[in-house]
């Protein structure tokens, strides 16, 4: 157990290191100075309180989508619909404000929990559909959850362009203050050092969620069932575990987490519903979950790393380098996993045999 756990972490770390080296080689080949670039990138994402805060802001939705993917992957449910569930979560939270279900003068103490609930429920619904199709009709969840992404984006666009459009622009009106998750900068009056820091309450939601999901997976009866089904469905059936019901429930939990990510992003950062709320947080969540070996607590540092990469992309030219690094991390991770699991040997044709 211990050994394989450490091995897994070593593989993940190795993948990141390999990606940095490969990225460095590419930088060098195009005439850049890899060391200086990396130092610059590190500075751009961790160099000061301000950018560190921005990094954490970027990491926040990633923690939640990473958890969403990790919990589903634990049961070998390949939910790749976190992106769509993210959009639906944003929609659900917006509906509370824009319909409006609650007036602008509602206390944030009621408004924010209501938005969280609506976001999580909308995401859960988006997870329920592929979950139900899988449990009831054995429809492949990879395909159905992927398709649901497109529906989610179209659904949101309909509301952005038509129902909630602000004066014909492709965005909703800005939310009232009561619908904003508190940011650090809000407290700068009592602590001036917080001036301008964008990190918002969503980070706390993400951290708490990570702890809760860890507890569910490793310490609860439900988590035990999820791990057993994930490792050997036939043994789970033999133990009397209802696989169909768990398929639906886990997809819903996964969707709810991604939905919370969407809520946290629009309520903590964007403050309105618009088209470009995600640079692919739901898809990055897949890589993060994998890199963290599906361990909810390790998802936190991995998300911060990816948040830093996204942020550094804003700062350096050409800005494609961090995206490139993300891609290389993914590829080297999959490759090392694969090489560990299967021994590939290149043999000469055995003429003499």
């Amino acid at each position, binding site marked *: 157990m211990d*050994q*394989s756990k450490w091995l897994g972490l070593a593989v993940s770390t190795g993948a990141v290191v390999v990606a940095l080296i490969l990225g460095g080689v590419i930088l060098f080949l195009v005439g850049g100075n890899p060391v200086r670039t990396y130092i610059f990138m590190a500075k751009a994402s961790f160099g000061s309180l301000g950018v560190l805060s921005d990094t954490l802001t970027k990491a926040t939705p990633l923690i939640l989508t990473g958890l969403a993917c990790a919990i589903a992957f634990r049961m070998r449910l390949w939910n790749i619909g976190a992106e769509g569930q993210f959009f639906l979560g944003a929609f659900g939270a917006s509906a509370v404000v824009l319909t409006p279900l609650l007036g602008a003068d509602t206390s944030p103490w009621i408004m924010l929990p209501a938005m969280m609930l609506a976001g999580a429920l909308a995401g859960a619904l988006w997870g329920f559909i592929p979950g139900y199709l899988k449990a009831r009709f054995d429809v492949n969840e990879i395909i159905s959850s992927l398709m649901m992404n497109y529906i989610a984006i179209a659904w949101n666009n309909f509301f952005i362009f038509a129902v909630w459009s602000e004066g014909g622009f492709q965005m909703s009106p800005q939310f009232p203050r009561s619908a904003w998750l508190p940011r650090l900068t809000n407290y700068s009056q009592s602590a001036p050092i917080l001036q301008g820091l964008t990190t918002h309450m969503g980070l706390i939601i993400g951290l708490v969620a990570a702890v809760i999901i860890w507890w569910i997976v490793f310490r*609860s009866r439900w988590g035990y069932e999820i791990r057993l089904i994930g490792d050997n469905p036939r043994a*789970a059936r033999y*133990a*009397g575990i*209802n696989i169909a019901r768990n398929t639906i429930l886990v997809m819903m939990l996964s969707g709810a987490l991604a939905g919370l990510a969407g809520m946290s992003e629009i309520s903590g950062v964007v403050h309105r519903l618009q088209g470009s709320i995600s640079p692919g947080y739901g898809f990055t969540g897949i890589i993060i979950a994998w890199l963290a070996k599906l361990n909810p607590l390790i998802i936190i540092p991995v998300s911060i790393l990816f948040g830093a990469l996204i942020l550094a992309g804003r700062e350096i030219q050409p800005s494609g380098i961090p995206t490139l690094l993300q891609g290389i991390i993914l590829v080297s991770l999959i490759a090392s996993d694969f090489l560990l699991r299967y021994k590939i040997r290149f043999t000469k044709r055995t003429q003499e045999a």
Partner: protein
Amino acid sequence: MESSVNAVEMKSITKRFPGVLANDAIDFTLRKGEIHALLGENGAGKSTLMNCLTGLYNAEHGAILINGDVMLFRSPRDAIAHGIGMVHQHFMLVPSQSVTENVLLGLDEPRFRLNLSHYDVKIAAMGKQYGLEIDPQAKIWQLSVGEQQRVEIIKILYRGATILILDEPTAVLAPQEIEELFKTLRVMAAEGKSIIFISHKLDEVMTIADRITVLRKGKVTASDVLVSGTNKAELARLMVGRDVLFELEKEQQTPGEIVLAIENLSAQNDKGLAALRGISLHVRAGEIVGLAGVAGNGQSELAEVITGLRRPTAGNVVVHGQSMVGERAAKVAPARVVRRIIDAGVAHIPEDRTHVGTAPNLSITDNLIMKAYREAPIAQGWAINHQKATETAESLRVSYEILAPTVETPARMLSGGNLQRLILAREISSEPKLMIAMQPTRGLDVGAIESVQRMLLAQRKAGAAILLVSEELNELIALSDRIYVIYEGEIMGEMKEAKTEELGLMMTGSRQVDSEKIDQGQRDNN
């Protein structure tokens, strides 16, 4: 190639796993043309030693000589290229492909055109030569376990193996199949092939082997033992380090009320063919009822129906007067049926310990709480009491002698016999009212068989009803109060004082002559 050199010489082989010294400076010699039995209790290191030989594992220390030359194989493929092939206990065949395709898999031939019929002929001929009759065009999933084993053997013979390793080949075979395998082995040995044969069954070893090496706790306790100069008792002592009694004391006791009643049960197998045809039987409290039969005559399906894993097409299973799977329950979700049966106190030792009975990557603890995790003290509301679970697992590990460094070890690292002990520990410790025991001693060493049989008798004494399915006729006769014989999904008869010959006849399809029922309960139910 003079005949004086040994086929295999392993010198001072050492292999360590985290927390276990699986092989401790082992010397092993296989002579040319001999059948050499490798004996040892569960977890002694037999499979590990053979895996070091074929390059699946790398020994940390030691040398391997093949036909006098020092060799170090980096993979089983490497080994087979030098004439060493191994049949593992768990087969590695592709179910959806034909026999021929499986044999050719991974080879460089055929190069361009798949001229399969040419190879079909070749493989059929090879099978005939060694008494391994098989239809080359049959798909693997259509074959019985015994036939699949033949495919595995043909596979390595086809690759030109002169040294064959068979890891517990007889564990999955019916008695006649074992006879046929032995014929094959003798033909191969007579041809000059050298064979390593691993088994826990001392009778078999005494029948087939020329020489014996015994391992115990990773060390050699006896080598160069000639079969002609030893006996079962001595071998057993060498293996487990103490005397093993081959007799069981079964106390007379009067069975109680009917716990399991099966009425006119019919069911289909995975291929949709009739597997059970109107079976009726019953088991009383404090009674061990044996079910004898050649594998594949409906035993597995029967156990699955009783435990809720398979839906019957007709008939009913009644446990303690409660109807479990009959028509009334037919609409209930299958998982709930399984649950209800478990909750009614039915334990199940499944036939397939790796694919059904355990979760390979979960820890020993997680595997041991598979049935108990829903209830206190392991369950604590929604939570699992981690400490309690660990404690329970630890005490089971000790009392059932599961050999593993810690209870955190993943189940896949256990040796075959220790995995079986894990399942037994879990099922017996649940103090069941009814136990469906499928081949409970399969793969266990003599010492462990003895203790499992004692445990079953202790369960009987405690008032549990036990349905024992086994291919070991001696075991069935020794343990059972009554024996039913199953053939092609039908009960051929029922016996109290079973005799081997009579059982054998009924197992091949002849109905019991005197139709007088042994137990009154049968009449009550009809």
